[in-house]
């Protein structure tokens, strides 16, 4: 194991580690905080909450986002909910259970210490958000409402219809804007970070490009926080926003930050299937729909009948069949693979045959229709009445999702089952960080989806929002002090320092390079091609042979990019094609590392499924002896990476074959 990796997990019993840490971490006094500058890149849940909270504490904060407003960050699109171990439903939940479910859901590839802390602070998040005026769903008595998500047997998910991410982000955004108004945060919208500046090994600032004027800017910070989200767009088609990218994290990686478990990607089981070659993104249908939607395919191959004409006994509810204990609420990786298995075997539905049904008819009528009928004292209701009553309830729970589905597919999910197929959604991998969320570059931190830390090889639903806000509101405000308390004598460094000049020069020459190729192919076409390679060879199923091919194909594509790409316009104008060129160029490098990591991991675990390593009934086959580690990759220039392994020790949880049967 590498001696370069120190996870800095505090000693002591699991349940006391964080309390102990918080009580002993060095503090920075208020007068010194005013002289310390922190750069926050990205304004999603992690970035906005961190920027706001650090500013509240008295630090001088500069926040950056590439969108036109911090409120646009892609956290806004999260639908289903946020987990917290409140046990408001009195159904047996606890911090330990949330911790346990998360470790198990992640297929035993996450750190105990980090995950326990996450579960601990989850309860504070809900309190904080409610205090900010986040309008979570409530019961008639005025208390908060909960629902279930995959991989758990309790109801611990808090939600605001199908737009929980929006409401949480607007809460964090308003806290951030409050600090902007008070002058404690300087906000730089339409700015993209293009490099990290390091001096004597420490992160000291960034080079950013003003996307409106096109000018490069140098910004100093005593610490730099990357809250820049995941890299799912390496697959071109994903549920990510169009602008979501790996650039900030990748620049950090090339400046010395190790990349953790890059191949761990989450393929979400319930997305609207691809409809044409022009498709620019895929749309998620929230996991919360699996509370009431039943997934099935026809028992007969290539069945051409309308789904409503296929009788009950000729339907294969394959999740309920294979996983009776969790049924339709198995974790995402399992549900996705099961859908792929059915479609590959020839049972898929819809025009492409690459889809399965998500059907609400049963619960609409029998669960909600009957409950409403009995509430209204209607005896022996007929089917029409049950459907009418049930429809109202389903509309209240999932109305916006059903509308979105109808708008995209032109089919009404109240009448016919949704057609869904897995799509790239989230990346568990990310910059390697220690317990304090610091990367291997001192003073450089990674929060939220941008880091690798809490979800192992598979993230449970409704846990991304939890982690983003945990990192930003409750973890970094403590841990950054541990570093900054030693920086109180560091005066702001002049941005004319040679390190800034050199970094800017490198960024400039890269921009020139893109503009000077003057080839014939669009940036988009390269991105699409890369996406296909990644999806086919580093997607839901991976093999040694495929991954080796993918690496060669990516290298060839990358070479072609620098010969034949066409980036129109110039640098000193609003030029979205130039912005995109930089992001795609970074994806073209990241893709190779992902394949390399997938190739190294000769086991299947969570979202990483190597065809060579599966059980007889097609479940992921882990190899705990050989691969119970975090793969942290060090960039060594060119196509060269070095692997450092952080062994995962389980002192509180007994590792077992994950079973949802």
């Amino acid at each position, binding site marked *: 194991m590498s001696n370069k990796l120190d996870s800095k997990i505090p000693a002591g019993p699991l349940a006391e580690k964080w309390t102990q840490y918080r009580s002993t971490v060095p503090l920075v006094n208020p007068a010194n905080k005013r002289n310390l500058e922190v750069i926050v890149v990205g304004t999603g849940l992690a970035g906005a909450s961190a920027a*706001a909270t650090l500013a509240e504490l008295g630090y001088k904060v500069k926040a950056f986002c590439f969108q036109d407003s911090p409120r*646009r960050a892609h956290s806004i699109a999260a639908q289903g909910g946020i987990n917290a171990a409140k046990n408001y439903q009195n159904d047996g939940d606890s911090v330990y259970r949330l911790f346990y479910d998360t470790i198990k859901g992640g297929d035993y590839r996450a750190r105990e210490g980090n995950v326990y802390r996450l579960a601990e602070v989850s309860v504070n998040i809900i309190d904080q958000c409610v205090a900010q*005026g986040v309008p979570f769903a409530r019961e008639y008595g005025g208390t908060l409402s909960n629902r279930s998500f995959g991989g758990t047997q309790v109801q611990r998910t808090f939600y605001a219809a199908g737009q929980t991410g929006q409401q949480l982000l607007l809460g964090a955004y308003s806290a951030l804007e409050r600090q902007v108004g008070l002058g404690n945060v300087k906000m730089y919208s339409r700015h993209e970070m293009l490099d990290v500046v390091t001096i004597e090994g420490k992160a000291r600032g960034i080079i950013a490009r003003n996307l409106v004027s096109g000018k490069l800017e140098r910004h100093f910070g005593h610490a730099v926080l990357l809250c820049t989200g995941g890299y799912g767009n390496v697959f071109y088609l994903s549920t990510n926003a*169009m602008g979501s990218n790996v650039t900030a994290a990748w620049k950090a990686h090339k400046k010395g930050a190790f990349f953790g478990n890059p191949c761990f990607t989450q393929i979400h089981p319930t997305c609207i299937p691809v409809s*044409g070659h*022009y498709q*620019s993104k895929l749309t998620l249908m929230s996991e919360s729909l699996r509370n009431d939607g039943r997934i099935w395919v026809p028992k007969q191959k290539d069945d051409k009948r309308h789904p409503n004409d296929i009788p009950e006994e000729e339907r294969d509810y394959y999740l309920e069949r294979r996983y009776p204990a969790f049924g339709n609420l198995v974790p995402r990786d399992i549900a996705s693979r099961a859908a792929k298995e059915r479609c590959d075997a020839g049972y898929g539905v819809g025009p492409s045959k690459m889809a399965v049904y998500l059907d609400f008819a049963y619960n609409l009528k029998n669960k909600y229709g009957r409950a409403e009928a009995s509430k209204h004292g209607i005896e022996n209701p007929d089917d029409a009445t049950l459907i009418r009553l049930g429809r109202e309830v389903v509309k209240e729970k999932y109305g916006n999702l059903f509308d979105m589905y109808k708008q995209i597919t032109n089919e009404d999910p109240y009448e016919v089952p949704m057609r869904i197929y897995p799509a790239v959604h989230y990346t568990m991998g990310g910059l390697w960080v220690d317990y304090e969320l610091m990367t291997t570059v001192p003073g450089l931190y990674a929060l939220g989806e941008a880091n690798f830390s809490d979800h192992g090889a598979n993230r449970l639903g409704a846990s991304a929002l939890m982690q983003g806000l945990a990192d930003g509101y409750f973890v970094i405000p403590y841990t950054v002090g541990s570093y900054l308390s030693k920086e109180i004598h560091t005066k702001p460094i002049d941005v004319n320092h040679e390190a800034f000049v050199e970094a800017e020069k490198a960024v400039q020459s890269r921009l020139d390079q893109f503009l000077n190729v003057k080839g014939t192919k669009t940036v988009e076409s390269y991105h699409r091609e890369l996406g296909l390679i990644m999806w086919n060879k580093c997607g839901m199923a991976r093999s040694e042979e495929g991954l080796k091919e993918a690496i060669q194909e990516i290298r060839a594509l990358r070479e072609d990019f620098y010969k034949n790409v066409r980036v129109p316009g110039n640098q000193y104008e609003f030029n979205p094609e130039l912005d995109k060129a930089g992001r795609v160029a970074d994806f073209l490098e990241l893709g190779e590392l992902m394949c390399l990591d997938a190739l190294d991991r000769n086991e299947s675990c969570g979202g990483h499924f190597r065809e060579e390593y599966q059980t007889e009934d097609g479940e992921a086959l882990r190899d705990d002896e050989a691969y119970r580690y975090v793969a942290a990759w060090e960039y060594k220039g060119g196509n060269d990476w070095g692997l450092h392994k952080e062994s995962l020790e389980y002192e509180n949880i007994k590792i077992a074959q994950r079973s949802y049967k």
Partner: protein
Amino acid sequence: MGSEAMKITLKVWRQPNSKAEGKFETYQLDHVSPDMSFLEMFDVLNEQLIAEGGEPVAFDHDCREGICGMCSMFINGRPHGPKQAVTTCQLHMRSFKDGDTIVVEPWRAQSFPVIKDLTVDRSAFDRIIAAGGFVSVNTGNAVDANSILIPKDTADDAFAAATCIGCGACVAACKNSSAMLFVSAKVSQLALLPQGQAERENRVIAMVDQMDKEGFGSCTNTGACSAECPKEIDLSNIARMNREYVRAKLVSK
């Protein structure tokens, strides 16, 4: 699915930057699928323009699922186009007919200056929120979430107001370029909730003052804002904001 490709003529506003003069350019697209989204049609147009050595059309967009509020096209005289309760990114070409000519402009408002082509600067909205669109509660100050009981109806009303995506369609739809619907949505959300009471008066005054400072016009009471709002934010929020404002002025010390 499998429907016939359509021929579409686009008249698109082109303007190199905020200072330059703009004009309409006409483009012809011959293979538009009805299942394409409006923005995917623009992707196709841009790929075509780049291949021909031209300049792609700059437009704002990000999530493409109707929630981030970044897309902002004024289509045939209506923000986000002809359909009710839909953002541009969720508008599909099946809402148009083969042979249609579609006119696409940026949001038109003095307070939303054009950056390039169809992209405008909406930072005025951020400044209005920074003036008072929040509850002043530092991290760590909160009490247990269930100690604040909020009747379901109140929570639902606050949520309905909070679903505003800040796209600016309301401003673009209004002949006075008024931002009243946007501002009132945030004022309403927080005025309805117990958490918002402590700053209730200061908030509405500060936000309205900032709105005026940004140069947005006065409310016309015609309701175009709400009719065109992709999230169907209700006009009654404006009435509530007016009441809140008057109340604040009367009770303020």
